[in-house]
């Protein structure tokens, strides 16, 4: 397999776009949140500022090798997801990244790579509360994956493929060909699980900014935090892109991409600003009720 520099170039460019779009989007969302809460909120460029600042700071302490590995895992997970996800489906295929190396199953599983690494790194940090945060995160994640999986399986049945690019191609030719219309139940189930995946309220106990002020974000500061923030920006866009590809017809140019990912992302923010926070057992139970049933229905329809 000879090395394809052109592909690498397009991929890195794509990464850059996604990163910036992710940062911008997070700023917008925070702004919206603040406005709903009758606050003024941050300026739109704040994430860049944070990022630059954090990358500029050097940590003077270390908790050991695993402590490094946490962000590395996390970042590899996020960016890896990006690498294996086709961004734009175009005739030239420049923006499909390295998705030829694996299919939807790879994506689904690779999501955990970062989580696991993060969990380990935080554990190494030595602060007990990070472990609690992780346990909650893992618990919730198992629950949200159930409707998600069901939806994905429903798609696989519907489109007879596990290749994301093929799924997108199948949705071309008009808005009514989108999965959103052809398979609405699966879409709803998946969109509900997205709420948990992005860990906004009401499913944000995982991050629990108030109750657990000293979880992983505190342990990791300076460059580490920068890496994590970068990753978060990329990851959110990639996740949204996944949903876009699966349910909303994908994108053939960057504008479409930005609109669609924004709307998908906005959905979770919208819900988050409206609902109060769940305890972890409640959220697990919740995901195993309505979305689960929807997922099952989605499969039954296409069986």
């Amino acid at each position, binding site marked *: 397999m000879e090395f394809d520099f052109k592909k690498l170039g397009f991929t890195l460019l794509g990464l850059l776009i996604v990163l910036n779009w992710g940062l911008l989007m997070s700023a917008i969302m925070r702004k919206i949140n603040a406005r709903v809460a009758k606050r003024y909120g941050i300026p739109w460029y704040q994430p860049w500022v944070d990022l630059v600042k954090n990358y500029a700071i050097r940590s003077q302490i*270390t908790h050991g090798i695993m402590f490094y590995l946490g962000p590395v895992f996390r970042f590899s997970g996020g960016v890896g997801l990006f690498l294996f996800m086709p961004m734009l489906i175009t005739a030239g295929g420049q923006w499909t990244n390295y998705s030829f190396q694996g299919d939807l199953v790879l994506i689904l599983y690779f999501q955990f790579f970062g989580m696991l690494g993060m969990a380990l790194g935080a554990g190494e940090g030595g602060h007990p509360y990070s*472990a609690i945060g992780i346990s909650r995160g893992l618990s919730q994640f198992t629950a949200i994956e159930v409707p998600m999986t069901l939806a994905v399986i429903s798609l696989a049945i519907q489109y007879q493929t596990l290749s994301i690019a093929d799924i997108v191609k199948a949705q071309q030719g008009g808005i009514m060909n989108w999965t959103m219309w052809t398979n609405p139940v699966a879409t709803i189930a998946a969109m509900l699980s997205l709420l948990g995946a992005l860990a906004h309220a009401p499913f944000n106990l995982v991050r629990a900014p108030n109750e657990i002020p000293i979880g992983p974000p505190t342990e990791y500061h300076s460059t580490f935090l920068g890496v994590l923030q970068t990753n978060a920006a990329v990851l959110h866009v990639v996740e949204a892109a996944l949903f876009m590809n699966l349910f909303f017809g994908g994108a053939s140019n960057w504008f479409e991409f930005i609109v669609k990912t924004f709307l998908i992302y906005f959905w979770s923010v919208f819900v988050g600003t409206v609902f109060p926070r769940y305890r972890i057992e409640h959220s697990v139970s919740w995901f195993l009720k309505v979305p689960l049933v929807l997922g099952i229905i989605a499969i039954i329809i296409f069986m």
Partner: protein
Amino acid sequence: MVSPFYLLGVGLGLGFLLGLTGKNSKKYTSAITFVAFAFFVFFSISWLIPFALKQVTETLIYTAGFLPPFSISLSVGFYEAVFSLMINSLGLLSILFLWKKINSESNALGGIILVLFMTLNMLVFARDIFNIFVWLEIAAISTSGIILLDKNKFSYSAGFKYLLASSIISSLYLIGVVLVYFTNGTLFLNDLITNASGVTMSVTAVFLMLIAIVLELKPFPANGWALDVYEGANPAIGAIMSGGVATASLFLLYKFSPLLDNKFSYLFVIAGLLTFVGSNLFGIKQDKANRLLGYSSIGQIGLLVAIIGFRPFLGDKFEFIAITILVSHFLAKAGLFWLSDVIKQDNIKNWSVLRRKPLLLVLFGIFVFSLIGLPPFPSFFGKWELIMMLSGGYKFAVVTIILVGSFIEAIYLFRWLGYAIKLDFSELPEYKFELNKIIPVVIFGALVLGAGYYAGNLICLKTLNYIPLAFIVLLYFIDSLPAYIKNTLSILALGYYSYLILPNLYETDMLRFIFAVIFLIGGIITLVAGYAYKGKRQGFYPVALLMYVGLALIIQAQTTLEFFFGWELMTAGSYFLIIRGKKSIEHGLSYILFSIGGAYAILAAFGLIYAETSDILLSSLSVATQNITLIFSLLAIGFMTKTASLGLHIWLPGAHAEAESDVSPMVSAILLKAGVFGLFILMIAMGHNPEAEQIGLILGWIGALTALVGNLAAAFQEDAKRLLAYSSISQLGYILFGLAMMTHLGWMSAMVYSINHFLYKSILFLTIGAVVLKVGTHDMYKMGGLIKNMPLAFIAVLIGIIALSGVPPLSGFAGKWLFYNAIIDKHWYFQGAIVFFSGIVAFLYLFKLIYSVFLGQLKDNLRKVKDISVWFAIPIYILIIGIMIISAKPELYLKPLGTMISGFYPNGELSWTGGLANAPYGYWNGSGVMITIGIMFSLLFLWLWSLSRKAQKVKQFNIVYAAEAPQRPETTHISYNIYAGYYKSIGWIVAPIFEKFWSTMTEWIHSVSDFGRRIYNGNGQYYMTHILIYMLAFYFILMH
């Protein structure tokens, strides 16, 4: 040929003369009797040899020179000679055993025993029904005499009950004899057999005689007297009764068996099976050793009675079956009774004193095994043939009953064995190790082994290989050498064995080759860890090798018999391995019980196959056309006990968790694959049947649920090894699921899972085991922060859990990816969703495992712990290299696997373009993903690391820490019950319903046993009524 009357002359003449000797000469009584018995044995052998060489045929010997039926006649034939030899050798050794006792008592005792055994011989030879009555009476009287050996109040009341019972029984027999004479005009058995009168009176007469002999054999439930005797009499007398008297009575029954018409066959069968099941069932609650032996003895004899009843169905195998089972019972029961006398412990819990002399423990194990019918003992082959022949006769209900009975018997015998192996004996009194008492036991132990070898050669094809077993015996003999020598020897042996079979398998049979590699090479790798153990490690190597031999035999088996032989050997070896753990007593028991139950299911299925094809070749599985559903289910259940599928899994967590550190990987990573292999064999052979598809669906669901429940349960464990054990359950659930799909991709995934599970579960169990060895506890909340002390272990666990979790890029993902493609291909969406869900749940426990043990706060008491032993690290890192290779180049093994599986399922195979695998739905490039992630990962890591080169290491206490002042570690360890919230919401899935189900079953059986055995209320009068009721019940059932 010597006339049997010389035996009678020697016995009786010497008996009479013993009365002459005065008190002073009583110290020679033993010697005199011993010489007499030596003559007896000599006579028996002198009969046996010509018969065995077929120089002579069965001959009738007349008394007084007149022809029968007018004179009493004896008959000497091959089987008479065999039985006589058995009885006489028991007598000879009994005298040796009782040497001192006989000398210290009056010479009466020697005389009584001599006359008793002479009588038993005569019972074997006699052909005149009234003469048999006389010998029966003499046997009863002399037995009632020797029961009093100890002369305590128990023996008196037992002996009296015995007399009461036998007086009723012999009266019944006498009435029968007289009626036979009245209606047939003859007392000669052969006459009666050739032309018995058909009138009702004659039939009833025959019935009376038969039932009396059956009653003589203590049929359940009219056998309270016998049990009391076994309990009350000296164990050495129990040996004589169980081995001698019962054997002779059984032969009597054999002699009468040609009289059986259909009705009477039923009599024997019902009586025998009722006894076999009932007696064993009531034995469950028993904890007095001698009485328990009595229950067991009666049960075994009951089985033999049933076998005699089945004579018409067993054809020319009848003698083989009867004699193998009888010989096992005979040798084992006598040996056990003798052991009981040697150690003088009545409660089975106190039999742990056997361990003071390991030789005795080994003998005990041999006897227990031969009673249960495990290989390589004769009863194994006997039971095998029995089941085959009965199945061949379409007696499936009976097969079921026999297997249930055997299973119940196994319950208490293995519980007993467990007590002997595990319980503490330091408080118990010493016992004397008298040579004259040990020699007989040793001789019988050796004989039962030899008999097993002989029986095996009689029925097996040449392939049955005893050399490995001989090596195990050798290992036992050098057991006092240091562990490292034995370890080296074992590794060499396994290596040599691999060298012998692997190349050939590679050429011929890829599937078997892969499993052989897992079993044998895996065995070698895990054995390396054994070097970490100091001292002698007695008893470890023989049983470990036993397991590996069993596994190797399964691989090589060509016939169902060889397969079953290997299966049982493997079960036995692994049982001993498991029970070596510290708190393993109950887990060992539940393991062996599930295994034996499963093995019986397999046996029954093989029987069904034999019934149809009359063939024991493994390949005949594929040609069967009838009862497919049943056969398939039985085999699947049998193999699923080994793979610990949901419902049959409850033995596994304890067994694996409590096992020794290097045993856990053996029994988890390697042993469980035996079940997988079995399932492969099953599905290859029978998967083409339409019924198999249906069952496959069920199996798929079971597999999926197993995966889910296993993973969830693992997440809630606080014990590291238990966590891994539950993880094994769920992994095997995946494999079962993959297998059940019966498609190309499904099997690919199952195969890939099997290989990967072997790798990462070995790593994890070895590492955690090594950690446990260092820190001295399994409880995760007592560990923490060990990453600093044990980086080697940490890295191993890290790689292990990434591989296990199935996260790309490590090899576990290959299995997952194949899985989902297969699921969608197969349209098993819901099962697939469950499997996926459980795959994610795995993260919970994997995180918990690595976090609780290696991360977080280092515990005070573990501050000085060193890294794991190098002997553990070597195999661990060998395996890690293995994982890395197959992660980076999955096509290395996926392609051959694909080729192999294409042989069974040609459709839907992967197509390869370079490293890219294409399935019908998805695609995946293992090396590409590995490279992509690897590059990114290492770049980032190097960058971050280089950024903070100057960073200072934070000391443990230089941080915020909360709620971690360890007083009660389980409440203050942050990871203790860390998934409490999760448990609240979905803990119900892992509610121990199966545990409850099985324990309710157990309780129920125990209650039935306890309630039922109260009919033995100890009152001789009641026992008499039992006998009469028994007789009448049979009469009215059979005759009306």
